[in-house]
């Protein structure tokens, strides 16, 4: 038996004047963790604002729990949203901030206080909950936002780039927390422009670009598509020509371009995973010292360019 869709979008479009926010998107978000993936300006935040009723659709219909999402306070009892906006009631403490907002739900102060404490503890903010938000670091502010979103135990959690501002440890902890919520059968919609971060949390993704929905489904299928997409890696080393010759012997290498002035070589490869294994061999077996490595086209935009085949979308 098919699970009831939590969120349904039917031919949804949203324009900001002449700028497309999202265009004719039809999708259903099912139980579990759903990753919303796309470069900056893809329409992820617009999509989330539409789902949570913060903005209205220019065309089409959005249903949350079977009800119209736009300006509907009823769905807010079952939905929590962490936006990208880095703004708070700065002069309040983290605890006071969440408690005050929970009381707007009609909760008694004791219940609101308890829920706020629990949420902040979950996000590792217990030692700082009685400090003013204006004294928080960016990571603390981000955790406070997520804590607010989960504080009323919503059925659906919508997180817009929740890993922004977190250090490596914080990112890891947040990813673990989200995975835990998934295991607890909570429904999470999470947006990011970093594929591997989404991959760590879920297999189910929606890919967007330029307001269009490019792909929907299992992340493995997307990865298979990406295998066909060559990557360019720049290496600075003591012997660029030697490095170029080494990599040209590999079947996965498409091209090698030496930049003499920079002591660098740009390798175009079909398999970036295998490339890094070969890089170790370059250093250990050939004795060529590598001083700098970077993926020359490592951004989701290039991937999306590839997937979309330019404007309009591939799928």
């Amino acid at each position, binding site marked *: 038996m098919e699970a009831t869709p939590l969120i349904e979008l039917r031919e949804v479009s949203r324009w900001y004047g002449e*700028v497309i*926010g999202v265009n004719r998107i039809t999708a259903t978000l099912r139980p579990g963790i759903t990753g919303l993936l796309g470069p*900056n300006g893809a329409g992820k935040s617009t999509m989330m604002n539409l789902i949570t009723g*913060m*903005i209205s659709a220019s065309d089409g219909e959005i249903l949350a729990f079977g009800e119209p999402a736009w300006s509907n306070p009823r769905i807010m*009892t079952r939905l929590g949203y962490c936006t990208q906006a880095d*703004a708070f009631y700065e002069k309040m403490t983290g605890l006071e901030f969440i408690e005050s907002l929970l009381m*707007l739900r*009609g909760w008694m102060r004791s219940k609101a206080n308890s829920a706020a404490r629990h949420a902040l503890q979950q996000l590792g903010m217990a030692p700082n909950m009685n400090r003013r938000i204006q004294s928080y670091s960016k990571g603390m502010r981000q955790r406070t936002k997520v804590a*607010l979103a989960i504080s009323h135990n919503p059925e659906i959690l919508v997180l817009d780039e929740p890993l922004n501002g977190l250090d490596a440890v914080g990112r890891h902890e947040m990813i673990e927390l989200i995975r835990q919520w998934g295991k607890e059968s909570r429904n999470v919609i999470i947006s990011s422009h970093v594929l591997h971060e989404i991959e760590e949390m879920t297999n189910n993704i929606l890919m967007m670009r330029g307001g269009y929905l490019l792909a929907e489904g299992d992340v493995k299928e997307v990865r298979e598509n990406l295998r066909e997409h060559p990557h360019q890696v720049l290496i600075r080393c003591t012997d660029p020509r030697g490095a170029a010759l080494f990599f040209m012997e590999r079947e996965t290498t498409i091209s090698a371009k030496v930049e003499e002035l920079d002591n660098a070589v740009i390798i175009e490869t079909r398999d970036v995973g295998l490339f890094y294994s070969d890089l170790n061999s370059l250093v250990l077996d050939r004795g060529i010292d590598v001083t700098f490595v970077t993926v020359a086209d490592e951004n989701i935009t290039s991937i999306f360019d590839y997937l979309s085949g330019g404007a309009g979308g591939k799928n």
Partner: protein
Amino acid sequence: MEKTDASLLLRQFIAMTRLSVKRYLRSRFFWAALVLGILPVLIAGVIAFTTITASGFAFTTPLTVPGATVDVQEMTQGFMFLVQYGYLNFCVFFLAVFFGNSALREESDEQTLHYLFLQPIPRWLIVAGKYAGFLLLAVHIFLGSLLLSQLLLLLPFGPKGMWEALVTNGRVVHLIQEGMVVSLAIAVWAAFFLAVSSVFRNMLYALFIYGWETTSNFLPETLRNFSLSYYFKFMLPERSLIKENGALGFMVEGPGGIQTFIVLTLVVCLGLTFAGWMTSTRECTYTDA
């Protein structure tokens, strides 16, 4: 469809009011209210100080100052002038303009509006809570200011003179009435500007309205019916310095009690309803697309 839970709405309203008061106390609004509340007190203080020094610290009733004799009645008329033209026509008016323009706009500018919209609270209740929080704060500030101004103006007459004016002559009753009128004016103007500000972003419109309110005193009664100051002024216990049988006697004519009640109630109800409706259709678009 779920039944509306009246007790839930009440709790939400109280929570929104408390949150609004907390926010106002920590915002520019509080300083604006304080400045506008203190202004008449400063004026009263200057008058009191001048009178005391001119009378040679006599603290008697009446007072003799160079060229004149000042009694309690004259000072009371001065206070009445301060209430009409200081409080009602200026301080309350501009505080309400400031409130109307900043109630939700400040939340939007600070990108915190979505926190309110993300709660399961009807949006009209957000407006109502903001309004109630403003009233709580503003009424307290202005009633305190009114009392202080009155006491300062009576100070030159000494304790005996103050007692005579306030208790013996019944001034305290009139002071309570004046306090109620000022509170009502705060409520009515706030509702009015809450509605108008939801349409107009620029506060320049307030200058036009202020000009109208000021000049309408000199217009025929038919046109004065469209001025809110007209209604407030005629609820004051001691009205105008203008003599009824004088050249400007037409300015003394007032609206009836029923008309006043209907007009002011309509302004508050329509103003809040319109502001609530505008808020229910308002979007949060300050996040990136």
